[in-house]
């Protein structure tokens, strides 16, 4: 972790600090509407601008943010949140229970077609109890409710702005009114997003006056810009550049554990890969450590479960080592002693997606499986992977990135591995179907006793990981941030968002 923050009382400039941090993410935020944003780059900015009712503490515990306290009814269905008083939006209006209701009503209205709609599907209603008290009633008891309230998608907005800007909210600087430590000053898309500290922030005020986001899509250019000092921090350093950057005086690379995992999922509709033994064989054929060493040295470590350790509900199932003999044996048992031909579908959208596929193909070859690689442009990839029927689906092995932004096993498992009922694969892209897994996940969702939940998820993970595997989990990713050594106290969350509410930068 970066060194502790400087003493906040005195103005920063006098103490030899700069008032501006320039940060280069790889893309610009797509939208700064909490309900619309669904990518890390957007989310990390939204996080600077808005607050949620609850938040994760430094050790993953859930604490209040806009809510001071909360309680849940007997039937586990009604949650009542007592809000902090005197919280001001950027424009000076006060955040009240009405704000919460306005925000959630917008999220719940299916006619708005918001992605957040899926998350709040289990909400039945939101009611204002008094000015600073609001209650949310869910349709059924929901185990992950508290984690859900930490989700930036449920950050509280100003209903007046919702009214005024409608769906344009968050698409330009004027339309943003949050409660967060920073407010938007200007936003020139793809060029520059300037944030300034929010003077009336209810919590600890930001230490640096301005944060400037300057997206640089090209990784090599990003690194150069950091080296020339044009930017103070960059997101997404090419793994092979990390040692070099670390060795440069005045630059550091910060790495943090995250929820992110990289896996290749099985297309279980495939006649060969549908066979459990075949899937197990493929899992044993892969040498994870070699992959990590060559592509992401120091930036990832082998997966030990279908969830990353920072996710609530994670169960350590151990690393699976390459075992070619076992793989061959399993293949023989499955009826493919001489291997078979198959296909790996990948996309460059995921870091080193192509190289990963190349290495896996070469490792599979060692156990006799010939895999042809199909690289797809992201949009086309989505089309081939998402929202189609088993008949149309043709990707025996396909790349996936996973990580539940709620940091809860429910988010990490439910949509992805439970049997779909619609005939299309919905979010269960690989048509994975295991009755026991379905039951376990369903129970886990409804269970509100944390210990019991953990047990249920542990079992589910065992099945998914190896017994009847859904994918080849390769490695858990670290979020990395290369920055000038003068930049201190950047907050990097397990969901890979990088925020600057506590950050300072020396002159």
């Amino acid at each position, binding site marked *: 972790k970066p060194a502790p923050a400087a003493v906040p009382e005195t103005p920063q400039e006098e103490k030899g600090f700069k008032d501006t941090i320039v940060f280069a993410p790889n893309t610009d935020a797509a939208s700064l509407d909490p309900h619309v944003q669904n990518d890390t780059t957007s989310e990390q900015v939204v996080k600077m601008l808005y607050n949620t009712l609850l938040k994760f503490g430094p050790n993953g515990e859930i604490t209040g943010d806009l809510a001071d306290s909360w309680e849940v009814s007997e039937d586990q269905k009604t949650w009542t949140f007592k809000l902090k008083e005197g919280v001001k939006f950027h424009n000076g209006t006060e955040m009240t229970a009405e704000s919460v209701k306005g925000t959630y009503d917008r999220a719940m209205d299916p006619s708005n077609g918001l992605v957040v709609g899926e998350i709040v599907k289990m909400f039945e209603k939101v009611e204002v109890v008094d000015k600073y008290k609001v209650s949310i009633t869910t349709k059924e008891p929901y185990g992950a409710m508290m984690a859900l309230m930490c989700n930036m998608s449920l950050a509280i907005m100003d209903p007046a702005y919702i009214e005024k800007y409608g769906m344009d909210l968050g698409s330009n600087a004027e339309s943003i009114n949050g409660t967060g430590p920073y407010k938007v000053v200007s936003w020139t898309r793809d060029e520059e997003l300037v944030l300034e500290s929010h003077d009336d922030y209810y919590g600890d005020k930001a230490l640096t006056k301005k944060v400037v986001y300057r997206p640089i899509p090209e990784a090599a250019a990003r690194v150069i810009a950091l080296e020339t000092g044009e930017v103070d921090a960059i997101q997404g350093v090419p793994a092979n*550049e990390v040692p*070099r950057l670390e060795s440069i005086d005045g630059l550091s690379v910060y790495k943090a554990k995250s929820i992110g995992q990289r896996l290749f999922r099985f297309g279980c509709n495939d006649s060969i890969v549908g066979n459990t033994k075949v899937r197990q064989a493929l899992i044993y054929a892969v040498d994870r450590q070699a992959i990590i*060493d*060559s*592509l992401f040295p120091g930036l990832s470590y082998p997966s030990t479960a279908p969830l990353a350790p920072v996710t609530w509900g994670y169960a350590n199932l151990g690393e699976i080592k390459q075992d070619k003999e076992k793989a061959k044996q399993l293949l023989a048992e499955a009826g493919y002693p001489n291997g078979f031909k198959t296909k790996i579908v990948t996309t460059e959208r995921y870091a080193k997606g192509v190289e990963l596929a*190349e290495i896996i193909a070469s490792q599979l070859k060692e156990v006799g499986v010939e895999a042809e*690689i199909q*690289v797809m442009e992201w949009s*086309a990839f989505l089309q081939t992977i998402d929202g189609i029927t088993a008949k149309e689906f043709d990707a025996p092995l396909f790349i996936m990135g996973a990580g539940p932004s709620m940091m809860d096993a429910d988010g990490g498992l439910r949509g992805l591995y439970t049997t779909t009922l619609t005939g299309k694969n919905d979010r269960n892209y690989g048509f994975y179907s295991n009755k026991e897994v379905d039951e376990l996940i369903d129970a886990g969702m409804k269970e509100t006793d944390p210990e019991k939940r953990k047990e249920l998820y542990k079992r589910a993970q065992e099945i998914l990981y190896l017994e009847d595997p859904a994918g080849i989990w390769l490695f858990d990713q670290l979020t990395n941030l290369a920055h000038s050594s003068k930049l201190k106290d950047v907050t990097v969350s397990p969901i890979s968002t990088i925020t600057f509410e506590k950050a300072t930068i020396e002159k």
Partner: protein
Amino acid sequence: MNSQVFKRFKKRKSSVIGGIIILIFVITALIGPSLCKYDPTAIDLPNKYQSPSIKHWLGTDNLGRDTLTRLVYGARVSLMMSVVSVFIGSFIGIIFGVLAGYYGGWIDALISRLIDLILAFPGLLLAIAVVAVLGSGIMNTMAAIAFYSIPYVARLVRGLVISLKHTEFIQACKVIGASDFRIIVFHIIPNTMGQIIIDVTLSLGSAILTASSLSFLGLGVQPPNPEWGAMLSQAREVLRSTPLAALAPGTAITMVVLSFSLVGDGLRDALDPKLKNS
């Protein structure tokens, strides 16, 4: 006559050197692979990003493949790709150009408008669109490049045909009753060949560049094919830590493209009747 062209061509030193470079690359593409001891696609992870050594003259890439070997195989892929795509593009372009130029009238109007239209279109985008429609891969990249070059060839050929059409020897052919087909195939096309060859030579280089641009956008040739553009584009982010991995394909591209241009320019000087007797 050809020996004269050759003589004139020889006068331009840079073109001769360009020709020699291309020859070297072509020979490399043809026989190089049989001299390589490494497999261009065999992954050898422990040996990734090696610096040049006796074992790996140009070092290795991110997956431990020998850069020199990939470069040599890449010569085959890149040259083949550019030749095939430009050939196909030119072939179709010639057909359109001849039809438009020879028949004139509404055929010409139609084809010319079409050409103008495609030319008014950002070229790279056209290639992107083709690859996006067909999916990426060698074949589709070639299709994209071919498609991209059709209007240029067609426009060139159209102009040539229009001026040829009015020459007396074509008129003489008509008078003896020769069919349009005969006139086009035996008289018009052979007489446009010189210019077309110049054009093709110049296009060969840009085809390689287009392929590399597509790779940059992630739409190029599929792995593990050692296409130069793909190699360069994969290695660009480690330009600093392992410069050779990027510099090798980058230099190869530059040299070949430059050489094609020089040869094209030399041919233009040598073949252009207007510059004769210089």
